[in-house]
């Protein structure tokens, strides 16, 4: 179980997250829903260890991870894809997916992962991950890399941004696959249709947790408020 306990994050005198409490149980899928600038990506980066919370703690199976960096958390089974995946000159897709040969997977697994995210193996396995790839192609490769890693917790920051109209189907395929591998999916999004596909959802606004529950209920609330933040300072 991965948890955030009273997590706050401030930078340059500006409060970005306040008292965030979230729990992610093994094998379930979650979305963190909210409008632009709500602090969703900051939560993802705090979970991954890229940002250290200025208040509160991060726990995995009861152990405090707050002081651990990105690599240590990845080794404990937490992994993430970024909203804007980096590009790497001179590195081919196969090499990237296998982390330069460090991840032991066979060609069939690479083929399966690429094709699940909608990239034909023959066309992409030897492509360079540089400027010649579109943002959508790069994003799909990033998702394929998580499929091969099979982490315990997969955090996907805006997985549908930059993708074409098949994004919804892709998310469903990913959910299905991650359910089978027992991976807990944490999906960051501002699209209620995408959030509605997960088991549970957290609605975040202005750095505060506004509502949590079954995704159907949270999404319904999000729709009713049109994603606007109805959070009143001082309310529970």
């Amino acid at each position, binding site marked *: 179980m991965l948890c955030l306990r009273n997590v706050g994050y401030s930078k340059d005198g500006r409060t970005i997250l306040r008292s965030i409490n979230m729990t992610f149980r093994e094998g379930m899928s979650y979305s963190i829903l909210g409008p632009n600038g709500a602090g969703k990506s900051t939560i993802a980066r705090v979970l991954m260890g890229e940002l250290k919370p200025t208040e509160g703690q991060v726990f995995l199976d009861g152990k405090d991870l707050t002081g651990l960096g*990105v690599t240590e958390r990845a080794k404990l089974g937490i992994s993430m894809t970024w909203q804007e995946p980096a590009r*790497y*000159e001179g590195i081919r897709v196969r090499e990237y997916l296998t982390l*330069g040969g460090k*991840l032991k997977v066979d060609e069939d697994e690479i083929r399966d992962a690429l094709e699940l995210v909608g990239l034909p193996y023959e066309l992409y396995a030897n492509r360079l991950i540089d400027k010649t790839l579109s943002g959508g192609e790069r994003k799909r490769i990033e998702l394929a890399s998580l499929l091969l890693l099979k982490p315990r917790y997969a955090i996907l920051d805006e997985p549908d941004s930059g993708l074409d109209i098949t994004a919804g189907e892709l998310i469903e395929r990913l959910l299905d696959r991650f359910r089978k591998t027992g991976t807990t999916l944490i999906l960051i999004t501002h699209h209620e249709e995408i959030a509605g596909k997960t088991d549970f959802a957290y609605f975040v606004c202005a750095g505060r947790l506004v509502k949590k529950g079954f995704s159907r209920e949270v999404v319904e609330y999000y729709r009713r408020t049109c994603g606007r933040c109805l959070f009143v300072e001082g309310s529970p």
Partner: protein
Amino acid sequence: MTIKVDRVKEYEALLDIYEREGLDTSLFGDRIAAIIISGERIIGLNNVPGVEITGEEMENGVRADVRIADGVELPFPIHLCTGYLKSEGYQRVEFNIVVGKNSKVKFTSHCIFPYAKDFTHEAISRITVGENSSVLYDDEHVHGEGVRMISKTEVEVGKGGRYTGRFSLTKHRARELKLEMTAKLADRAIAELTSKVKAVKDDSVEIKEVLLLEGAHSRGDLKSTVIAFDESRVNVVNEAYGLGDYAKGHVECHEIVKGEADVQTVPLLRVRNDKAELTHEASIGRINEAQLVQLMAKGLTEEEAAELIIKGLLGE
């Protein structure tokens, strides 16, 4: 391949180094046009139909002419091997390469100085690419610890011709490197000059790439990638001149610094034709944070992630 009897041992020694370094030994085969130089001597020479290589031994090196006839398309590269198997000394090689019209050829140039401790190598190349011809020139190096290298290449690309020059010194020490490459382009000609260098310890690297886009609709790219470690010093100058109508050029320089290395890049873009267009892109400094973190999120340590990124940048 014609090998002079008294030079068989040197020839075999070079072959051994190729094997040890994982270089392609099939380049010594009979179907490959080649000149094999060791010190100031030509130890092997081979011509194939359409390619005429002649060489002349000088006091401290070799001068060679390479002529490619019109309409020649070779299935194998032309092999230019320059070796120096002693630890000290001076060597100068001069190549004058003329490629006729409508030809398509590839050169693989190897500079092999594995035992060099106090050695100076000077290479002067003049390359003329005929109309509508295409030339790919790969330049790879095996260096010992103590090589001072001065390399100057001047390329003229005729109408509709294409030249791709790739210089790589990434697996061995650069020590002291002065690399100059100039490409002059006629109408609709294309040139791409790429250099990849890794500098370590107290290496000193100077790279100057010049693109003269004289012809109408000519196009060119200059691309330098340098990884500078330790106390190395690197200076990269990229110059592009937009002179012809609708000429288009792009200059790209990426330098990664680790340790106390001192690195500078100087781009010069000059347009003397209002229909020409030049662009420039440069990055200098440590490895991109996002690239590192995103690999670390997959379980690599920062060092492992940096190694993979650098390996990619250097094309290893």
